[in-house]
């Protein structure tokens, strides 16, 4: 879709913003360019719509060298969103959104009705149509900025730190909204940020650039966290990448047990028989009521008579990740996380140690679970299996090291193959060194 071929940008004063960058961005996905300031990520982005012209190499869009397209024409087919929205202060919200359709000569009426549609799409009420940008909050302006970029329904969107100028709460909302929109629109998006958390949250693929405009690694977020290519990437990704990787493990894949989950009408003796310090008391629909400390239970009667300790928070097997599950375990009075189904009924519980068993040392099982959503329960034993497949891993390297995009494809292809060993082999093989 968008292809960088040995692209460099050198300035007359001798600085190199982008150095021999080759990258191929898949159609319909979000590619995040991330790196410290001065790594050339914004320059790279702006080369796509010719706001910056490379000094060497070519950028092509659907196989066509973009230098063959007149810049204004090229730009009308590429949406652009920037940090401070950059709305036209003298135009109403509706006319801002209608900008590109008007430039394309759609006519006022058609352009405005399209703009009204987009206003709704980005979640703003139609009462805002006649307002001017100064009357909007930062978050609302940013939404209008996104709507304006979508004006003529361009297949490609360039987004330059679009959410970094708003407060963290609004940023979270905008990111969630953005993910929802993208599910609907399937645009090819190039997204620049300096925030690795944002990159991991939003990106289908992440290109980590280092100062001087060199590509350090191009990979999926899961694999970036599991297998940083070098110390720079590992450092940039951060100390807590182990914890963050848990976001990619589905809670549904975690091992849970339910022996200590007891209905409120159970006799106290049954709780004692469970031989655990805590039991989880549930109602008739298996909804959690609270924890009962076995040592403090009355001598007779049912669990309904026991004093219960509040739950803390539960995690949902339907939508949450292992990160939420681990958090639930750490905050729980019993140190046990409670997993519930979409109806809120308890499926089972697990402690941090049991949860960590699903998150093996180097993350291969994590990759498999995240990429394929397999129902198999990885155990700590998997780590040993993986060491045994080192040869496969080497073979995998040869295939995958050449081209970042094909690497991703290969990984997907192999995991689809199915057996546990294959999964492990791929995991180690794709580590890009």
């Amino acid at each position, binding site marked *: 879709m968008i292809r960088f071929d040995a692209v460099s940008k050198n300035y007359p004063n001798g600085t190199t913003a982008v150095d021999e960058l080759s990258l191929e961005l898949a159609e319909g996905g979000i590619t995040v360019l991330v790196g410290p300031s001065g790594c050339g990520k914004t320059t790279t982005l702006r080369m796509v719509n010719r706001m910056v012209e490379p000094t060497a190499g070519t950028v092509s869009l659907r196989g066509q060298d973009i230098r063959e397209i007149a810049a204004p024409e090229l*730009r009308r087919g590429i949406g*652009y969103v920037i940090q401070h*929205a950059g709305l*036209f202060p*003298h135009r*109403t919200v509706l006319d801002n959104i209608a900008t590109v359709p008007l430039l394309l000569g759609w006519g006022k009426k058609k352009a405005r009705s399209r703009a009204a549609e987009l206003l709704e799409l980005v979640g703003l009420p139609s009462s805002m149509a006649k307002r001017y*940008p100064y009357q909007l909050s930062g978050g609302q302006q940013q939404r209008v900025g996104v709507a304006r970029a979508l004006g003529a329904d361009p297949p490609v969107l360039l987004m330059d730190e679009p959410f970094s100028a708003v407060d963290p709460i609004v940023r979270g909302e905008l990111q969630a909204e953005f993910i929802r929109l993208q599910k609907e629109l399937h645009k090819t998006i190039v997204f620049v940020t300096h925030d690795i958390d944002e990159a991991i949250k939003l990106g289908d693929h992440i290109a980590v650039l280092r100062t001087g405009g060199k590509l350090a690694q191009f990979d999926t977020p899961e694999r970036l966290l599991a297998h940083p290519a070098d110390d720079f990437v590992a450092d940039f990704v951060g100390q807590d990448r182990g914890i963050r990787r848990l976001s990619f493990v589905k809670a549904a894949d975690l091992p849970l047990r339910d022996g200590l989950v007891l209905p409120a009408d159970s006799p106290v003796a049954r709780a004692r028989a469970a031989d655990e310090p805590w039991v989880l008391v549930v109602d008739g629909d298996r909804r959690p009521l609270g924890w009962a400390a076995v040592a403090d239970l009355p001598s007779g009667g049912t669990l309904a008579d026991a004093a219960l300790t509040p739950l803390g928070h539960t995690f949902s097997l339907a939508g949450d990740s292992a990160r939420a599950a681990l958090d639930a375990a750490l905050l729980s009075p019993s140190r046990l996380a409670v997993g519930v189904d979409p109806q809120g009924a308890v499926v089972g519980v697990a402690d941090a140690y049991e949860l960590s068993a699903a998150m093996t040392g180097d993350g291969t099982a994590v990759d498999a679970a995240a990429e394929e959503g397999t129902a198999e329960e990885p155990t700590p034993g998997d780590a040993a299996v993986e060491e045994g497949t080192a040869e496969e891993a080497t073979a995998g390297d040869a295939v995958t090291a050449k081209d970042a995009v094909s690497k991703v494809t290969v990984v997907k292809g192999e995991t689809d193959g199915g057996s546990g060993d294959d999964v492990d082999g791929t995991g180690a093989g794709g580590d890009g060194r």
Partner: protein
Amino acid sequence: MRDGEPLIRWDWIGDHIGELADYTGVHLRLGLLPVLFGLIISVPLGILCHRWRWIYPPTLTAANVLYSIPSLALFMIFVRYTGLTERTVMIPLTLYTLSVLIPNVVDGLASVPEPVRQAATAMGFSTVRRVVQVELPIAVPVVVAGVRVAAVSSISLVAVGQLIGQGGLGYYITRGLQLDFPTPIITATVLIMLLALVTDALLVLAQRLLTPWARGKGATA
């Protein structure tokens, strides 16, 4: 002033209402057309100065030099070419507006936030279209501020044109001096001041109507 002569003889004003109105019209024309011409010259010059910054200092210096030439001297120069006509008054007044209007056009264009300019480029505006449809409209408040100063000073300067017989209401000032008769002097002076103030108020109103988006100044983009 003669003994017993009052400062204002209201009956004189009543007798001359029609004539005063005619002179007021002429005065307005002599004062405001130069501002319009000045704007027509300043906008393109300001755009050029904004685009190529190195042109700006010499252009501004030239405008200030023109402004420093006494009006009397300019009238005497132009009277050789354009005679004792309104043009001889309007040309110097036009030149005087430049030293206010050019910097305001340049500052107005500079007031366009950089993200807005970039967004416009990235949306696919050609350079000309961007200047006309985005940058100039955003520059309007700053340009109008300059127009207000130029208009007020131009309206009060018109009276000097009476030296070549084209001074609008200035006529009554010289006439009153010659006749040692204060009523026309005071009347004309007050009218000129009123013209300036009303023009200024109308410009403020016009700007409000033209730029409803600028009320929350500072909160743009």
